């Protein structure tokens, strides 16, 4: 007996909910970023589960692209954090709240 798809989808929903709840409540900018990566991975898990359910490759291709885009986003986001840190000396998202210096 194999694992039904609904279990994978519920696991994906749980991971996404944990990531979303954390990302909305943390103050450290880099931790928020980390939880965004967790949410993206929860979505990837759901897509691969659907690929297995239908027996096609579409889900796997989409995950491939999502991984590439997530890598690009992580690189630029971290570079922006470094730039923000240089000016404001903090990455607490409650304190980076003014557009001017």
């Amino acid at each position, binding site marked *: *007996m*194999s*694992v*039904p*798809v*609904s*279990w*994978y*989808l*519920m*696991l994906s*929903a*749980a*991971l*996404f*909910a*944990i*990531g979303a709840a*954390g990302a909305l*409540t*943390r*103050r*450290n900018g*880099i*931790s928020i970023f*980390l939880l965004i*990566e*967790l949410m993206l*991975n929860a979505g*990837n*898990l759901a897509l*691969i*589960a659907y*690929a*297995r*359910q239908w*027996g*096609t*490759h*579409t889900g796997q*291709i989409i*995950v*491939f*692209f999502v*991984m*590439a*885009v*997530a*890598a*690009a986003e992580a*690189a*630029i986001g*971290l*570079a922006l*954090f*470094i*730039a923000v840190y*240089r000016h404001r000396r903090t*990455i*607490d998202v409650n304190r980076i709240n003014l557009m001017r210096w």
Partner: protein
Amino acid sequence: MEIAIFAIFALLALGSSLVVVMHRNPVYSTMSLVVTLFSVAVLFVILGSPFIGALQVLIYTGAILVLFLFVIMLLNVTKEENTASTQKGQLGVAVLGAVIFGGLVLALFWSSHVPLDQMAPLSEELVSMKGLARVLFTEYLLPFEIVGLLLLVAVIGATVAARRPVLPDATSGLMPSDLVRTSPEEEPLP
């Protein structure tokens, strides 16, 4: 057998994702995320895409999270007081998480018209990389090329964004040679 592997790695993924959310030290959060992503990669493999599973370990845990650790150590991010450190805060986070989870599961079971117990069998075509590559380079060729361009833009953008700011001299104006850092004694970021 498959149920045992699923159970172990699903519980591992859930447990370590809870540590990611709750722990105050960002380095511990990153290492817990490594465990989570590794478990998700194992789940990819038993779902019939070993290629995507290997890519997940290679890209996410091998590069992106190392970059996170690098930036955390560079900026010397210390432990922070976040919402999840007080009792009332933990309750709030748990309620928020439960609401989101409930909403997702409701949407899942309400709108799907295909019974969610059927799984296609693990065919050689699904698991092999040849099948994936064939689809990637015929149907999805345009997104593939665009993603390549996107990664180039990301590399350029990250290099520019993290560069030391160049302050123009008020008296002489900005010369092209000012945009290049030529002073060897100025210490770059380690």
